[in-house]
């Protein structure tokens, strides 16, 4: 009861200090506001950049790719049959063609779909062809895709600039062709393109769509057809594919998914981290920069708050001495100034949050028309908001604590005697 009353007095004194010199309180709050808002802005901007980069990279990169291409064939029939000491001479030795495709696609897809980390699975039949239109002949590649799963995984439908992606589903002789490839061939929507496979099969396809990814290499050389048509063209059955692509809910869990399924799958499994090490490095470097910059900002803000609290306390040194002479203990003084710091920290964190979101949304309106972007990217994360508020308040309290502790140790006699 008595303790409660005493704390009430301390709070009352703290509030009088805060309200009697409003400009000083406002300046102190602004220090926190600035730090917190810059922290939020920097992180939201960095997240935006990272997210854009990732979206771009993962627009045609699966988290895990399953194929049969890198399988090494160490089997040497000569060594297997004859004893090591045998001397032999084979001239003009030839290796037989190894299988580079997946014969049991449905089984692999089922295995991957059963993993709880897995979000989407799709299979592709990829092969190189000649695209022909009249006398024009261009070397390129065909992707036979499962249109729905492909779209779920890579958002292909959004990249189609003429026609409809989903038409691939039922138009078995329809083809969606890269924008520049179409230009090079001189074909438009609804024109026909003849394709010729390496094995000599030839078929006419109708251009039902034109696609523009942000990757030139693909736009210049690739066309998409239904996976069924692709199998038909190659004379393969419905269980055939050249690769199975897997996306996870959390793309950082690739290694554990690979470890869990490697045996059952029995094919080469390549994670995006292995396939794109520069992507991992760039993303990590950006995160380091973002952390370093926001830490520096908060540190500077922290020093600002420390200075202001120090100034406030130096200004109030006589009053602190009087309070002590009247019977306020060092603990009370600490309490009074920490209360002020906490109020400044809370107000600064809240206004900083608002300002940070304000600055970020303003920056998000700045035009920036490069690589599929229209404005500068901003991406908000709850974690950043929480970290900014917590760090803002903790910094303020710490910055207030040291001057307040100094104040609590003031010897009233020295001050009052002058």
């Amino acid at each position: 009861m008595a303790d409660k009353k005493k704390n009430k007095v301390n709070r009352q004194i703290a509030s009088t200090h805060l309200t009697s010199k409003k400009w000083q309180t406002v300046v102190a709050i602004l220090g926190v506001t600035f730090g917190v808002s810059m922290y939020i802005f920097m992180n939201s901007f960095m997240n935006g950049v990272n997210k854009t980069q990732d979206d771009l990279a993962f627009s045609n990169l699966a988290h895990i790719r399953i194929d049969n291409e890198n399988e090494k064939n160490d089997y040497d029939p000569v060594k297997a049959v004859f004893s090591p000491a045998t001397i032999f001479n084979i001239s003009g030795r030839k290796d037989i063609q190894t299988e580079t495709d997946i014969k049991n696609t449905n089984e692999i897809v089922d295995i991957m779909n059963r993993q709880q980390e897995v979000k989407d699975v799709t299979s592709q039949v990829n092969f190189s062809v000649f695209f022909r239109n009249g006398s024009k002949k261009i070397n390129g590649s065909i992707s036979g895709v499962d249109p729905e799963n492909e779209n779920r995984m890579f958002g292909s439908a959004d990249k189609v600039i003429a026609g409809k992606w989903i038409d691939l589903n039922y138009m078995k002789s329809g083809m969606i062709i890269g924008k520049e490839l179409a230009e090079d061939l001189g074909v438009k929507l609804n024109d026909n393109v003849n394709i010729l496979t390496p094995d000599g099969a030839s078929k006419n396809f109708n251009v039902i769509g034109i696609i523009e990814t942000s990757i030139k290499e693909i736009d210049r050389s690739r066309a998409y057809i239904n996976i069924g048509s692709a199998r038909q063209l190659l004379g393969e059955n419905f269980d055939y594919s050249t690769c199975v692509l897997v996306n996870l809910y959390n793309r950082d869990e690739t290694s554990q998914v690979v470890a869990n399924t490697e045996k059952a799958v029995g094919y080469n499994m390549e994670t995006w981290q292995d396939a794109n090490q520069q992507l991992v490095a760039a993303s990590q470097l950006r995160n380091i920069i973002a952390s370093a910059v926001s830490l520096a900002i908060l540190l500077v803000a922290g020093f600002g708050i420390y200075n202001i609290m120090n100034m406030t306390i130096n200004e109030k040194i006589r009053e602190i001495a009087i309070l002590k002479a009247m019977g306020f203990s060092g603990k009370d003084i600490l309490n009074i100034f920490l209360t002020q710091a906490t109020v400044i920290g809370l107000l600064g964190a809240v206004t900083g949050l608002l300002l940070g979101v304000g600055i970020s949304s303003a920056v998000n309106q700045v035009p920036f028309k490069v690589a599929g972007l229209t404005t500068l990217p901003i991406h908000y994360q709850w974690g950043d908001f929480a970290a900014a508020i917590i760090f803002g308040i903790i910094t303020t309290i710490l910055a207030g604590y040291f001057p307040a502790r100094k104040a609590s140790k003031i010897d009233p006699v020295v001050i009052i005697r002058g």
Partner: protein
Amino acid sequence: MTTVNKNTNALEVKNLVKYFYDPSKFQVLKGVSFDVKKGEFLSIIGKSGSGKSTLLYVLSTMDTDYEGNLSLNGQLLTGQTQNKLSAFRNEHIGFVFQFHYLLPEFTALENVMLPAKKLGKMSLEEIEHKAYESLRLLDLHEQALKGANKLSGGQQQRVAIARALINNPSIIMGDEPTGNLDSKNSLAVQDIFRDLAHEFGQTIICVTHDNDFARRTDRTIEMEDGLVISH
């Protein structure tokens, strides 16, 4: 309210020795001993540098850097922790400084109420009522709601006196408590002090230059060169 018992000592000092170390070691108090009875109105006089203010700050429990023993109300305070001393000051000692020292951001009334709020033994209404009474006693009730920094020097000093009275401290100490007052107000304050001492048994100890002031007190201790030369 403190019971009036003139036969017990409100304050006992034994062989008080104190040094200043800055700029060089210097003995300010050279073994001061005396007692003050409950309900006594005491003045301490002496020239500048005689150590009388230093003595008062030791008596006030704020200065703990001394040798010897200090007891107030029969309680030995030498060697107590700062927190205990703070609590003791809050309840038992009222202090009037030489340069009035109010909290400038608070009103006169709030300044007077603060020590009582800190003590927390009365309700807010009681504290406010009592603060008004103290201010009226010093003819300041009309200034109660003015900011402390808006008052004249004399008014501030009287507010400080009202503040010193609020918790009914058993001992009131003043360092030139009437130094900023005109003769009329100075006399009024001295009358208040005498009433408090004689009717309510509160002990008053004042350091002063003013020989007229000293003459009106019950007893005068004179100091010179860190020693009590008469009492």
